[in-house]
């Protein structure tokens, strides 16, 4: 079990690092899209490659970021029933869910999307839109994203089982400090007090 927990920590660290890199793509895609919109109108110039790179990048965000979102436990749940259960029961549900729901989905989609990447790569497929991009990088994101999600699933499974064995604290309790809403509230309150002190 200790070896598995070490594996889980390694996966978590990797996922964390990948997530922190991938979220910069948000800023990149905002800049590309806004610039593209202005340039298209102002200089009447556009290329499909600018449009396609936007969804390539967005796809990278949500596919590669899926594992990171799982690590942060931010995939939404309907917790109207499970919210009232004990921590043990919630962790049991996750064990069942990871094995029976998450794994089959990630394996099937990841497995079946690999040949599409190989096909696009071998044929040097290019988008059918004029000036379009090479297709294989976008095709590659799918199996990579689902592999990362699967790996994070393994890590989460290890953590759930370790908790059920009493080895680690409840992994479903929020470990990452305050939520975005709490931070916003603190920020405004701080600003208010600063204003109040000045006046």
């Amino acid at each position: 079990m200790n070896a598995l927990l070490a594996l889980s920590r390694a996966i978590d660290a990797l996922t964390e690092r990948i997530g922190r890199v991938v979220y910069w793509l948000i800023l990149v895609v905002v800049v590309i899209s806004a610039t593209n919109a202005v340039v298209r109108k102002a200089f009447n110039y556009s290329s499909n490659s600018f449009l396609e790179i936007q969804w390539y990048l967005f796809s990278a965000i949500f596919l590669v970021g899926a594992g990171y979102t799982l690590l942060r436990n931010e995939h939404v749940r309907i917790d109207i029933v499970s919210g009232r259960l004990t921590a043990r029961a919630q962790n049991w549900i996750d064990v069942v869910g990871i094995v029976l729901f998450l794994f089959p989905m990630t394996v099937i989609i990841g497995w079946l999307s690999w040949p599409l990447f190989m096909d696009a790569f071998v044929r040097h497929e290019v988008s059918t839109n004029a000036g379009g991009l090479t297709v294989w990088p976008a095709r590659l994101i799918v199996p990579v994203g689902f592999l990362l999600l699967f790996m994070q699933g393994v890590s989460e499974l290890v953590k759930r089982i370790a908790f059920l064995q009493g080895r680690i604290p409840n992994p479903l309790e929020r470990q990452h400090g305050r939520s975005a809403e709490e931070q916003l509230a603190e920020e405004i309150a701080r600003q208010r007090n600063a204003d109040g002190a000045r006046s």
Partner: protein
Amino acid sequence: MSAWLVANIAPLMFVGLVIVLMLGFPVAFSLAAVGIAFGLLGIELGLLQPTLFQALPERVWGVMSNDTLLAVPFFTFMGLILERSGMAEDLLDTIGQLFGTIRGGLAYAVIFVGALLAATTGVVAASVISMGLISLPIMLRYGYDRRVAAGVIAASGTLAQIIPPSLVLIIMADQLGRSVGDMYAGAFIPGVVLALLYAGYVFGVTMVKPAWTPALPPEARTIREADGTSGARSLLVLVIVSAVAGIAFAKLRLARTPLDETIVIATSVATGLAFVLAVINRALKLNLLSRIAERVTFVLIPPLALIFLVLGTIFLGVATPTEGGAMGAAGALIMAIARRRLSLPLIRQAMDTTAKLSTFVVFILIGARVFSLTFYGVNGHVWVEHLLTSLPGGTLGFLIVVNILIFFLAFFLDFFELSFIVIPLVGPVADKLGIDLIWFGVLLGVNMQTSFMHPPFGFALFYLRSVAAKKEYTDRLTGKRMAPVTTGQIYRGAVPFVLIQVLMIGLVIAFPQMVMVYKSAESTVDPAQVEIVLPPSESSAPPPDFGVPQTDEQKEQQKEKEDAKDNSDAQSLEDLFKAPAPGPGK
């Protein structure tokens, strides 16, 4: 046994989904798992082709190459940057001062600012948190009824859901296969009417229970003239001058443009003029404007500029909704830099939250697509259609049942789940019944807005609870001890607004014209035209096929049917809105 299974696999699949979702495992994976499990069962029973799952990668690909969804991270990011920029706080302070001294004035200010913030971004949490921290303590200080105060804040925050640019409208447009621009144009008037209904409720309260919403004493104003007067007259003059200029400009120059375009231009001209006058007044120290007039002009400029940048460009047809979102996000960044509020931790946090939100949203969609692959394969859509078309009362019966269903589901599902699970089931039926899908989408949008206000799980109530005083506290200004705001007060405060929401659903059903205005907005950019399209390809704008496998012939027929329907619907409305001269878009 297996014959029974074959006959009932669609209803079983639906029940299975409900049970699995209730377990509380992430929705995205639960949806996919039910789709895969029943897919295997269907293959075993000989109902489905063994190659069924080969279609999965293409389903994921379809989600990836969907331009509409790109607007989700853009508007989320914009909202997150904006909520930290201090814009909401400035607005609440100034507008609160402006309206405060009339009875119910603070409540009107909250509704007005709520609507304004809603038109800038689509984030409910930010509005509710700002208002809960800034307006609620002031309302309590001057003796507002706690239920009214809490209800008005929670409800005004949820306006972000229905007033464009809101995330739910983007997703609704995507799921119904309609353009986001049309959905925005259609939702605009209902959103404004809803804000007016809220204000009407406050007015009713001031009439029946004046003590619940007292006027602020004059000394509560900090922005006033040297002689102690409010300076409101000067503001009124400025407003009238700007409004007249804007309307006159629109009338003179733009008689031939559609209604929404005229509104955008007139508002921009009016705002621009007010801004220029205020700047001249300040620069030359003319003192022609009162302090409040100057202050109001300056705090209104940033939100109005952002609204123009996003909604204005979309309605003018200059930008697609996705581009509008990107420009809005860029504009919010620039504004935050100008106000010295932008820092690396803030950007990181905004990107982090945006990435996680977009990921879970898109993954619910992927899960829903996996589910629908099997569900349509076993003719689940036919089952749903029979179920819904056999209702008494025809179209109206269908609308009422669907709305009741969503109203109750909204107690425990949020709008992402509702849009991705329920809309694909009811959308095609609505289309078959000849219901305009934009109208249908706006109607359901108003309905889903209640999911934020339903006690005890409504998010707006939850956010308000998190910032309202839980313990007795000392008021900073008066030094008086104040009682905490109880959770019961927040819940009870929300009830009248949930009822207003139900009333609004009825109004949208009774007066479809409010939504149908979108048909005069033909100039909206069609994303399909932006791309330099050679032959139609898989990445061009998808037809509204709800994932139902269709032959090209069927699509052709559907298209013709729609065209015919659009024409007949549009006729009377065109008479209404395009009477002076037919727009160039037609």
